[in-house]
């Protein structure tokens, strides 16, 4: 027996300033089914979920939710109809408490958005407790009263899902929910989703991680260039077929790294440490080498990256660049020594979203663009930005456009471009392809390889095991703040790497 249809979108069109973001997409969502919406950045999948959640009005087509047709769906109507969306930024209000973030929407919907009503604190607490219990989080009064900004990202993710449960959602849309989670946390998320599914809730995932889609099972909906190009049970497709449908070209697990010419040592870390975060980290990095660093979320790899970037300076040990000892006390020190750092979270840590591509690219080298009298000379900056945009294949005609108008992959390239502008000797890339589609990944990997040919040493910190294997010469594993293993990538399989990552003790006797 096929489950009841919850939502049907027919021939949805959406245009932005002459660009067709959606061109007649139709989808059917049934109760208690899991769907994976796949597509490259810019394919229209973000627009589609915004239309389904009422955040954007569609231009043409029909939306039927629970048998009722909507011409103009607003966010409150979508919520009232039972559609809850967990956006990538989770849409949690940072200063409000856990309980309020979970339970307020329910009351807002019940009063149809009228703010002149009293709010029921008792009901808020009850709802929050019930929803938190359902996702397996604690629900004592202390936790209920904590502002969400003080909680780690994985907990916030579950709170966002708890909110969906609290509003008794019939359909939950999750935009790349696993990006910031460790594998353990992803497992927990999947359990919660299965629980929702059992209660007849439809779940629509937007994800780039195909492995997780297979692990969860369900249906896929593939979009490309604003059109649906495939749908059906995920088991019907192979990974290569999915990639092919999404990109329109064939991509498989090619190894990008070809030459690993060993040159002279450029960076030497000697027993580096900081507080409790990491300790006695020692390694060498050569010119033109790509060194991968990975580990679980609490392994200290993030802190190590930030220490090398001067953001959270190391408190122990020493660092040599070439044959000189250097001290990195601030990001400015790192830049001055030619160490560039591309952070993981480009939206909050890296880019000035409202500023132009040009300003974002030149922002780390402003002192070099200083003309006479110390005034900023616009011309070299424009030249530099145009050249960078061209060499990184940033797809835009105008470098004066704000960065936020670009797709995720292009934004990431702007960020890399900024660090190339400082002509780095060492470039630290932290999760360079997080939230980036398959096609853009390909471009970014090629850029990284090209850099090493010019002698730049790259440290690649990532969770994405295939990414590490495809790009690195060596991979260092971190566990509990210490280096636990050093693996050579040539001939290493993903299974070996995964095994080494999870094994308790050091198998190669490193360190």
């Amino acid at each position, binding site marked *: 027996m096929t489950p009841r249809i919850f939502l049907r979108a027919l021939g949805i069109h959406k245009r932005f300033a002459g660009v067709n973001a959606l061109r007649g997409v139709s989808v059917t969502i049934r109760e208690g089914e899991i769907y994976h919406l796949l597509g490259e950045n810019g394919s229209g999948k973000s627009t589609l979920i915004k239309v389904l959640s009422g955040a954007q009005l569609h231009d043409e087509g029909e939306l039927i939710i629970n048998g009722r047709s909507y011409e103009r769906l607003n966010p409150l109507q979508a919520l009232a109809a039972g559609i809850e969306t967990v956006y990538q930024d989770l849409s*949690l209000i*940072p*200063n409000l408490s856990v309980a309020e973030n979970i339970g307020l929407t329910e009351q807002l919907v019940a009063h149809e958005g009228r*703010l002149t009503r*009293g*709010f029921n604190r008792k009901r808020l607490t009850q709802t929050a407790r019930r929803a938190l219990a359902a996702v397996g989080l604690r629900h004592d009064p202390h936790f209920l009263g904590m502002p969400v900004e003080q909680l*780690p990202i994985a907990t916030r993710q579950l709170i966002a899902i708890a909110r969906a449960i609290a509003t008794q959602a019939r359909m939950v849309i999750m935009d790349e929910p696993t990006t910031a989670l460790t594998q353990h946390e992803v497992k927990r998320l999947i359990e919660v989703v299965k629980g929702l599914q059992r209660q007849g809730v439809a779940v629509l995932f937007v994800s780039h991680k195909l492995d997780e889609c297979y692990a969860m099972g369900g249906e896929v909906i593939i979009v490309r260039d604003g059109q649906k190009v495939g749908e059906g049970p995920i088991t019907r497709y192979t990974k290569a077929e999915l990639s092919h449908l999404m990109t329109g070209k064939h991509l498989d697990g090619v190894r990008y790294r070809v030459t690993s010419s060993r040159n002279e040592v450029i960076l030497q870390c000697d027993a580096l440490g900081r507080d409790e975060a990491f300790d006695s980290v020692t390694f060498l990095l050569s010119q033109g080498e790509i060194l991968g660093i990975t580990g679980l979320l609490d392994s200290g790899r993030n802190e190590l990256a930030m220490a090398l970037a001067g953001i959270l300076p190391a408190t122990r040990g020493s660092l040599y660049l070439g044959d000189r000892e250097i001290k990195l006390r601030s990001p400015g020190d790192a830049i001055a020594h030619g160490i560039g750092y591309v952070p993981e979270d480009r939206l909050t840590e890296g880019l000035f979203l409202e500023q132009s591509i040009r300003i974002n690219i030149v922002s780390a080298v402003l002192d070099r663009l200083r003309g006479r009298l110390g005034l900023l000379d616009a011309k070299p900056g424009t030249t530099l930005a145009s050249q960078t945009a061209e060499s990184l294949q940033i797809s835009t005609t105008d470098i004066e456009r704000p960065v936020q108008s670009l797709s995720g992959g292009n934004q990431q390239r702007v960020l890399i471009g900024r660090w190339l502008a400082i002509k780095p000797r060492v470039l630290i890339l932290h999760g360079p392809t997080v939230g980036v589609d398959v096609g853009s990944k390909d471009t970014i990997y090629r850029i990284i390889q090209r850099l090493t040919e010019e002698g730049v040493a790259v440290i690649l910190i990532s969770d994405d095991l295939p990414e590490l294997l495809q790009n690195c010469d060596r991979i260092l594993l971190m566990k509990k703040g210490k280096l636990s293993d050093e693996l050579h990538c040539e001939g290493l399989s993903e299974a070996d790497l995964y095994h080494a990552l999870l094994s308790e003790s050091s198998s190669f006797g490193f360190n």
Partner: protein
Amino acid sequence: MRRPELLTAALIVLVSVIVGVINPDFYQLSTVFDLLRSCTVVGLLALGVLIVLTAGGIDVSFTAIAAFTMYLITKVTLQVWPDAPFALILLVAVASGALLGSFNGLLVYKLKAPSLIVTIGTQYLIRGALLIFVGTAFLMDIPPSMDDFGKMTLLRHVTVSGATTALPATFLTLLVMAGVTGWLLNRTLMGRAIYAIGGSLSIAERLGYNLRAVQVFVFAYAGLLAGIAGIVHVSSNRLANPFDLVGTELDVIAAVILGGARITGGTGSVTGTLLGVVLVTLINNVLILAGIPSTWQKLIIGSLILIGGAGLALKRTLSLQRTTIV
């Protein structure tokens, strides 16, 4: 810091102890009455600022609104119906203050402009209109009902030396409005929406909070309180001076900030704000008792804001760093 109000309260105690040690005359009931009387107008204005700051905005036009409503209403009442009952006068002040305030709110919403810019503009506009079209002369005689209200006392106390001090009834307006504001912030959906929008405007809008309603409401509410403050000001001074109040915006905003509200929005409480008002009023009024020249007031308030503000900001940065890196 979980409860920034505690810091404000501690500062009040500290200032009181220091002043009391230097001048033991400080410890008497009349000091308390004086303090509460001086707090009333600043307190009413501060409650308005609190609401706007919590919603992530800022308002600097409220003093102009207060001056405008108090002067216009006094003048019109004198000409049209000098014996108008006080309740009616207050009601008109509430309505006109709210109307002027909602104009701010609509501008901020429609123009998507920073509220600082908008309210600097409207402050000049309202003040200009007042001085050009309404008048510049002091009104020494005020309507009798306002005069009576100003003279009404809640508590009376005769000191040993035979002098009487009294707590005026005007103080009640502050108590009532503090209660209303507290109820509004903590017990209504509007209150939660104000915190939500102050926390993150774009997310709150996406979650279905009505941005227009909230922005118009907070500025209208600040205007409403300014209207009340204006009438209270005239009633207790028995004089309507169109040049009064304007220029004290920063004192009021300072009081709210010292009460623990963040200028970036999303935090703030009525208790904290009232404590902040007491602290600023205390410093403004009693330093003289301690033999400190009144010119030192600004220096001291400025230092307190820097210490308090920097302390809170630092604490917040540290706690955020801890969570994001885990």
